[in-house]
């Protein structure tokens, strides 16, 4: 009786907390996400936990199917859609079975119409809400924010996406990494797709260039997730002012101070290249006097800078402030900037000589740890270049 009571208490306690979500992410199909998920599932079961497969897609891969043996599989449910019988994860079945840990493949999958949710990640949220731990898998190109980038890099767009927040909410994100060469070797050996599909895959998606690009995207994504979690954990204590003063980002964030002039384009190009190398976001900031709308040539240059920002995926910000340094420092603080890039100024004349140079003033006004870098002017002719 006591044992039954203890089990009931344990069930109740579990249901009152959210399950632990671990996501295995990879650059492409065949890197071994499902395989690794199953391996860890076995390890958990060996450690005495109650593990069940909620849904697994073996993709006709014998090694994966073999590894699933020995783990309980919750039966799929059959759904008829447009006269075709399809198999989906049985969400009510998983909730009723309520294992301690459920293994659920393909987080980005779209369910057949008429089920509880449109997407599988929504099913997973329900499972987690029931206090069941979940191991799941996803490929990096399914992340909403990366979908365009990956499509541009590889020429292939996936329709099934998940919001980035799903990954952000996950307790653990594990990157399953493989070199492109190793993945292609696995493909050639028939370990990913059946024989008749191998050539087509090699000629289309599975090229070394595509896989290199995807691998880089996947590595960056996981690095960002790690960084985001560190920031949450390491939020500084103290008053709001102290928190604002403290550096917010562990990773880099580049801020380029632009003016509506053609020379700013070179500065933007340099800043973008630096941001690319650092794997950081890029903000372009124009500090303009309050209430003065750009017109004529200035408006044309502002529009050109906006366009360039859009092409590069950078953020174009406009801050109204009479004081360039104060405006830039406020934005740097707000955005967690670690690098400020400015263009070269002309030699100062008159009373301007008495003021501290712009880089010095910026260093003093921005939070500690913000680097200021000056991008040399190419010596281009520019009729309306002013001194700062």
């Amino acid at each position, binding site marked *: 009786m006591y044992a039954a009571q203890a089990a009931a208490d344990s069930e109740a306690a579990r249901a009152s907390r959210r399950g632990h979500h671990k996501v295995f992410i990879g650059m492409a199909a065949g890197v071994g996400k499902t395989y690794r998920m199953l391996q860890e599932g076995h390890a958990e079961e060996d450690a005495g936990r109650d593990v069940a497969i909620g849904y697994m897609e073996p993709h006709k891969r014998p090694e994966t199917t073999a590894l699933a043996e020995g783990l309980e599989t919750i039966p799929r449910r059959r759904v008829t859609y447009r006269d075709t019988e399809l198999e989906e994860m049985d969400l009510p079945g998983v909730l009723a079975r309520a294992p301690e840990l459920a293994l659920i493949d393909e987080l980005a999958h779209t369910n057949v119409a008429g089920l509880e949710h449109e997407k599988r990640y929504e099913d997973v949220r329900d499972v987690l809400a029931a206090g069941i731990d979940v191991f799941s898998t996803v490929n990096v190109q399914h992340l909403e924010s990366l979908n*365009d*980038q990956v*499509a*541009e*890099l590889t*020429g292939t*767009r996936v329709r099934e996406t998940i919001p980035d927040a799903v990954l952000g909410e996950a307790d653990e994100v594990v990157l399953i990494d493989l070199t492109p060469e190793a993945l292609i070797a696995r493909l050639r050996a028939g370990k990913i797709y059946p024989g008749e599909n191998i050539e087509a895959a090699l000629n289309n998606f599975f090229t070394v260039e595509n896989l290199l*690009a995807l691998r880089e995207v996947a590595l960056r994504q996981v690095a960002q997730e790690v960084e985001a979690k560190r920031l949450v954990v390491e939020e500084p204590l103290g008053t709001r002012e102290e928190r604002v003063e403290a550096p917010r980002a562990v990773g880099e964030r580049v801020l380029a101070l632009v003016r509506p002039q*053609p020379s700013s*384009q*070179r500065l933007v*190009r340099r800043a*973008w*290249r630096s941001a*690319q190398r650092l794997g950081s976001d890029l903000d372009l900031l124009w500090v303009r006097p309050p209430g003065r709308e750009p017109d004529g*040539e200035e408006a044309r*240059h502002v*529009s*050109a800078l906006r*366009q*360039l920002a*859009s*092409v*590069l*995926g950078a953020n174009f910000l406009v801050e109204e402030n009479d004081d360039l340094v104060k405006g830039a420092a406020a934005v740097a603080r707000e955005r967690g900037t670690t690098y400020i890039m400015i263009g070269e100024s002309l030699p100062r004349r008159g009373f301007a000589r008495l003021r501290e140079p712009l880089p010095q003033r910026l260093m003093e006004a921005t939070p500690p740890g913000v680097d200021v870098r000056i991008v040399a002017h*190419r*010596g*281009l*002719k*520019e*009729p*309306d270049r002013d001194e700062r």
Partner: protein
Amino acid sequence: MSVERVLILVALVLGLAVGYLIARSRRHGRRSDRPEEIHRILLPFTGTAISRRAVDAALRLARAEGAVLMPAYLAEVPKQLPLECAIPAEAAKAMPMLEAIEQRAAAQDVAVDSRIERGRSYRHALKRLLEDEEFERVIVPAGGDQGGGLSGDDLVWLLEKAPAEVMILRPGPEDTRFVTANGNGGRGSR
């Protein structure tokens, strides 16, 4: 207060007023020196190499006319992507090309105002450029993708649609010099 002191004070005030007026008129003078309208020469190109002859011709003309050169990289956006999406892979090709052209322009003291224009095709990108920008001349290398040029059809279209003077430069058969991302554009090197 003695008369001398008053005179010195008056002289000081007068000196300051005159200095202020001179400085102001200089500032105004500098502004009025600026041309009312800036002439622009558009140099659209595709790919990662552009005929050096086309670039040099555009620079010579820009220098002679005191015009701003507007090199514009035409980028094709795949149909499955939104037209206004970020195109980092194309941008990575465009950047060093624009840098190389700017380098040559700097050596010849020519002002440059670069662009990257997106379109579903090169012609579409060119069309958007014609709609958004103002210029008096277009210099375009012929010869298809080779040497950053446009196809014959696109050139015919440009001649019909461009609201400006169009110069098509067809490189001679021996002209294998290009401006490339490396900037030096060696003979035959693309």
